[in-house]
């Protein structure tokens, strides 16, 4: 069945985790943007957790690329959780942003890269 997209934000030490579940495209873009605003207000780093996302389109990829740019300007960083073989990982690999935004298997792994950059 179609899975309507849901967005949640969780603030942890040093970063905010934006978790996307279900299907996300242009129609859920405003909700993701709002989550980003919430996240930026809390910390300069964001983890996009796409493990629960069943579908993302280029709108979502665009949000993450823009977030990476913004984080770089403010000394923060952006990490993405997209388990290999899953639908989000396929889209991100095709667009080729895994070169600049490495994909992580779990949220813990992603948070470790944020707390220990480089």
């Amino acid at each position, binding site marked *: 069945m179609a899975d309507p997209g849901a967005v949640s934000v969780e603030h942890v030490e040093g970063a905010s985790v934006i978790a996307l579940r279900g299907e996300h495209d*242009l129609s859920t873009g405003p909700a993701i943007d709002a989550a980003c605003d919430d996240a930026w207000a809390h910390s300069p780093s964001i983890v996009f957790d796409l493990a629960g996302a*069943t579908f993302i*389109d280029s*709108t979502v*990829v665009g949000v993450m690329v823009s977030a990476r740019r913004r984080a770089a300007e403010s000394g923060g960083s952006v990490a993405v959780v997209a388990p290999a073989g899953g639908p989000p990982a396929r889209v991100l690999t095709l*667009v*080729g*942003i895994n*070169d600049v935004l490495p994909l992580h298997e779990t949220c813990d792994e992603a948070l470790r890269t944020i707390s220990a950059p480089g």
Partner: protein
Amino acid sequence: MPELARRLDTRQGKLVAALVAVLCELAIALPFLVISPNTLRGVPGPLLVVIGVAASYLLGPWFGVPVTAVGVVLAVTIVGENAWAAPMVWLPVSAGAGIVGERVRHGDELRRELIEELRRGLVGLYRDPAVGRLNVVSRYIPAVSAQRIAGDFYGAVVQPTGDVALMVGDVAGHGPAAAALATRLRAMWRGLAIAGVSDSETVSALNETLLAEQQRIASQIPFATLCLATVAADLRSARIVIAGHPPPILVTGRGTHEDAHPPGPAIGISGTSTWEPHPLALPDEPWSLVVYTDGLVEGRTSPAGPRPYGNDRLLPLLAASALPIGEDDVDAVLRAVLDANGGALPDDVVLIAASPR
């Protein structure tokens, strides 16, 4: 209606239109003149507003807002001389609202025209499908909402060597900014392709253009994807360059072959990215090369089913097409995708099939 509009667009026509407008307004006012004051007092103000708005809105496009307004004021003046017209204060108000409504509608029309013009700039539908030694069948399906213009674009040109360069691209994001950037990238690609600049250099130049564009304040285009497929003049091979875009699909009598070479990154992400062309051998038997934008495979698998439709479903559709893939076959593929989705797709779609002619 255009014929009528042309006839009205003369001095005499305008005079007649103005007279008709005034008569129409008088006709609207007439009931208020003849019905008894007591009856009129029973008429709710909002109803008069509706009448006034409807009159301005309906007559505005043909007779012009000023003429309509003059007619309304005239009507109000006539009615106003009969001192019983207290509810008539609603009429000027409603006429104003009608004029605003007309302006909004005019704005909508202007926006629609702009969107259409941008779309034409993006895709340039060719009357003659012949491009060099290829026949290029192309389709562009706008997204479900006409106001949500996307940044899909494509082109086909013959290079000085006789090679035929095909390009399809997709600017991430929607709206006039994405569409305007797409038209610029398309024009730039076209110039470079006609001049015979190499595919790698072409993509690098487009990358630099997009990176420069992102430096502009208020530019919100994160990246764009591209697929370049250049078919050699001898029709024996093609050169493929992919920047974050779905790869081309070669359809032959033996089935489909999706180019599996690892794609280069999308443009507009990094200034150090490079793109290398890789060869695709073309058979002696009939073939068609299909390039498309992701909107084609991102719809639903069934009207209430999950997304995406996916290449797994697209490939058998193409394999079942008669070769070379022509207008009817392309339409059949699009129909199947639209049927699965249960109607118009959420994003724009470009689908191109190129075959030797």
